Structures are given as structure tokens and as C-alpha cells.
């Protein structure tokens, strides 16, 4: 029965080609928001792939674009896994950090890629060129577009500025779970970045000590300015200032953040210590009491309250305006 049906189906040319047509996608796939120009061809040095080194090659191109000349061989030693005959995404991320670029996970859309390209940021992507059941994983670097974004230009394998229709690209990219990184110097906020993922990415560089303190300062202060409505951006910058011993300046950012999010107990806790460091014990006690009231079950805040209560009273005069 079933085989009869398939025979009929296969014999019918019209059905067969109809099937082809549908699967191929009938119209060209394009961005929902047109990019800035008709076409863009970024001036990114091309590094050709040898054997299975597409990961190191794509990364080397990106690093050279940012004037960090790291050779293909060097990167092979840093990301290639001989036993897997390829490079893993986690290692590509770590290697970007190692060479001082911020790996920011890109949003899974064509629009996001085009916006980053327009902003002058190449995008590293993982594609599955074949099928889910026979995956052929491949890294490429998006370096431009033509036809108002209906075609992408990739440094891919042995082909510089390889033109791929956006529809095909999106399919190969979707099969790799849209894995992709915008690579920028850490103090340059990616065009499509959102506050929390950016703070998270930069914090991972801090954790792994792959960022200088000047870059961290620049990145976090820019984030606080760039996302004035993000309480987290204000708090994270305030924490950094407090850690550096600039309690007075930190207080300003805590207050800004608390105006946006007044019930953040952790921020109130840190704010209290910033106040204490500025000689404002009374205000510090008020702040930590608010934190304890918000999270009475959290022992950390009760400990903080004790610590603040037991501290020496102000060595210098408190000159902080209480918030609100």
C-alpha cells in the first residue's frame, strides 16, 4: 500500500517538482529591517582554512581585523581538538577572551548580524552545512552583505567573501542552534547588545582575568551610560567603583540603580557598605535594615547588619545626601 503510494508520488513529476519548490523556499529571505547600505564589504583580512582548521582560520581573521596578529598555527594549538577533528564552541569563546576580544553571543536573527556588520563588527558563526542526522559543523566569519542583506558575505573555508543567500545561511545556522559571537574589544559595546548579557559577558572576562582593569573600567562605565534604565548596569558599575575604593562615586550609582529598582536587597547591602566607607554610619544602618526587611531569611544581610553596627563610628564627616 505505502510503497504504491510512494511510487505514484515519485512517478508524478509535477508533485516531485512541487515538493522541490516548496522545500527550496519560494522567495528570497531578507532582513525585516533593511541594513544601512545596499551592500557592505568589510575590510577583514582573510585567512584560508587548511584541513579541518575552519575555527582557527575564522578566529585568526577576526583577530587580525582588530590588529591582533595571531597566526593560524598558534590558534590551532589553542582551539583545535585532534580527537574530534574540529574546534569546540566553548574553546572558541575562551580563545577570543584570551586574545582580548569580548565574545558576545549574538541574537538568533539575520537582522542582528546585519546591524553588527553595519557597526563594523564581524560575526563568528557556527553552521551545520548538511543535516541534523549527518552534521557537518563549520565556522565562518560574516564580513559583509549584498542585495540589501538578502545575501551574506562570509570568510569561509578557502573562500574569501563567499556569497550565500540569506535563506540558505539561516537554515545552516539554525541547524547549529544559531551559535554565533560578536567579537569586539571589551570596551566597545556591540550594536545589538542588551544590558544583562553584556554585563554577563564582560564579567566572565573579569572572572577569567582576560581583561585589563582599564578596559573593565571603560566597559562598565559605558554600560551604565548606555543603559540608563538598567538598574543592573548601575549596580555593577557601582560595585566596581566600591571595589576600587571610590565609595563616594559608587554611592551615586547605587542611588541611581535603587531609584529604578528599590527592592534589590543585594544592592542595598553593597550601598550600605559604600555609605559606611564614606563615614555615613547612620545612613548605612538604614540601608542594611531595608535589605534585612526585604529578605529576612537571608543570613548574609543579618551578618552585614551586625558588622555595620559593630564598626567604629565615622572617622570623617558624612557628606552624602540620602536618596529620596
Amino acid at each position, binding site marked *: 500500500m505505502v510503497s504504491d503510494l*510512494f511510487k505514484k508520488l515519485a512517478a508524478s513529476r509535477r508533485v516531485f517538482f512541487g515538493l522541490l519548490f516548496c*522545500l527550496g523556499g519560494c522567495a528570497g529571505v531578507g532582513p525585516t529591517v533593511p541594513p544601512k547600505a545596499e551592500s557592505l564589504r568589510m575590510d577583514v583580512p582573510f585567512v584560508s582554512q587548511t584541513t579541518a*582548521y575552519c*575555527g582557527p582560520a575564522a578566529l585568526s581573521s577576526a583577530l587580525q581585523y582588530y590588529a591582533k596578529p595571531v597566526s593560524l598555527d598558534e590558534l590551532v*594549538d589553542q582551539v583545535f581538538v585532534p580527537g574530534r577533528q574540529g574546534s569546540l564552541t566553548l574553546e572558541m569563546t575562551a580563545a577570543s577572551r584570551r586574545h582580548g576580544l569580548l565574545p558576545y553571543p549574538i541574537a538568533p536573527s539575520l537582522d542582528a548580524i546585519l546591524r553588527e556588520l553595519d557597526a563594523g563588527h564581524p560575526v563568528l558563526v557556527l553552521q551545520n552545512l548538511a543535516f541534523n542526522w549527518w552534521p557537518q559543523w563549520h565556522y565562518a566569519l560574516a564580513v559583509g552583505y549584498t542585495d540589501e542583506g538578502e545575501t551574506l558575505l562570509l570568510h569561509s573555508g578557502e573562500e574569501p567573501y563567499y556569497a550565500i543567500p540569506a535563506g*540558505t545561511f539561516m*537554515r545552516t545556522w539554525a541547524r547549529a542552534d544559531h551559535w554565533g559571537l560578536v567579537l569586539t574589544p571589551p570596551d566597545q559595546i556591540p550594536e545589538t547588545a542588551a544590558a544583562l548579557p553584556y554585563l554577563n559577558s564582560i564579567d566572565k572576562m573579569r572572572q577569567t582575568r582576560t581583561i585589563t582593569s582599564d578596559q573593565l573600567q571603560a566597559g562598565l562605565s559605558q554600560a551604565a551610560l548606555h543603559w540608563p534604565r538598567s538598574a543592573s548596569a548601575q549596580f555593577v558599575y557601582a560595585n566596581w567603583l566600591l571595589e576600587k575604593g571610590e565609595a563616594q562615586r559608587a554611592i551615586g550609582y547605587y542611588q541611581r540603580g535603587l531609584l529604578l529598582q528599590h527592592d534589590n536587597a543585594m544592592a542595598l547591602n553593597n550601598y550600605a557598605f559604600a555609605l559606611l566607607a564614606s563615614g555615613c554610619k547612620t545612613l548605612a544602618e538604614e540601608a542594611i535594615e531595608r535589605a534585612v526587611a526585604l529578605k529576612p531569611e537571608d543570613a548574609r544581610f543579618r551578618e552585614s547588619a551586625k558588622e555595620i553596627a559593630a564598626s567604629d563610628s565615622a572617622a570623617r564627616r558624612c557628606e552624602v545626601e540620602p536618596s529620596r
Partner: protein
Amino acid sequence: MFKRKAKQQLALVLSIMLAWSGLLVSGAQAGVISSTEMIAEQHQFESKQSLKSYFDRDDVKQQMVDMGVSPADVDARIDAMTPAELAELNSTLQDAPAGAGLVGVVLTIFIVFVITDVIGATDIFPFIRPVN
């Protein structure tokens, strides 16, 4: 007669494979999880991981050396990873996607991929431009 039957069978195989590839293209997506939730979870996860990472580190190193990575390079390679990333690498080193590009395509399925390349479902051969 035989020729016709072979042709039919080829067409059958091709159409099944094509239909399959089309279905696979539309990936399933779960409900959207907000970044706030994700970062919060990440932080909880990482604090639990900090103790475990000490062990993860040795595991990962051993696994990587087993996979042919030079012992001299291993430390520097994992230094730029957070504890959560180390744990993830430890559990996925064997089967996470390893980007390599294309190495060797079997001839029998060559034709299928030429066609899927032409219709733009795949992009295996750079010299083939999709029709649309």
C-alpha cells in the same frame, strides 16, 4: 524495465530525504526564558560549581590530552573559561559540535547533496549556487 524501476527508486529515496531535510530545518523552540532568570540561575549554578570546578579541571585536562591536545597547551586553553563553562566542557567534550568544515563526502550521497544545495536547503559545495 529495470532502468525505469531504478529511476523510480532513486526518485523515491531522493524525495524522502528531501522531505526529511525540510522538516528538520524548522527547529523546535521552547518558551522564551528571560535574561534576568537566566543570569540569576547562572549565578546560583556557578556558586555550586566553584567546588566542583576543581575536579572538573583535572577531568577536562585528562580528556583533552586523551584527544590529542598537547599537555603543554591544556592549562592555558582552559584558563580562560569560567567554572560553569569548564563543567559544561567536561560533560560535552565527546559530543559537542566540533566545527571542522567539510572533510570527505561519500560519492553515493553526492547527488542528493548537489540537489539539496541547488534548492538552498544545504550549503555543502561552495561552487553550487542555489537557484532562488
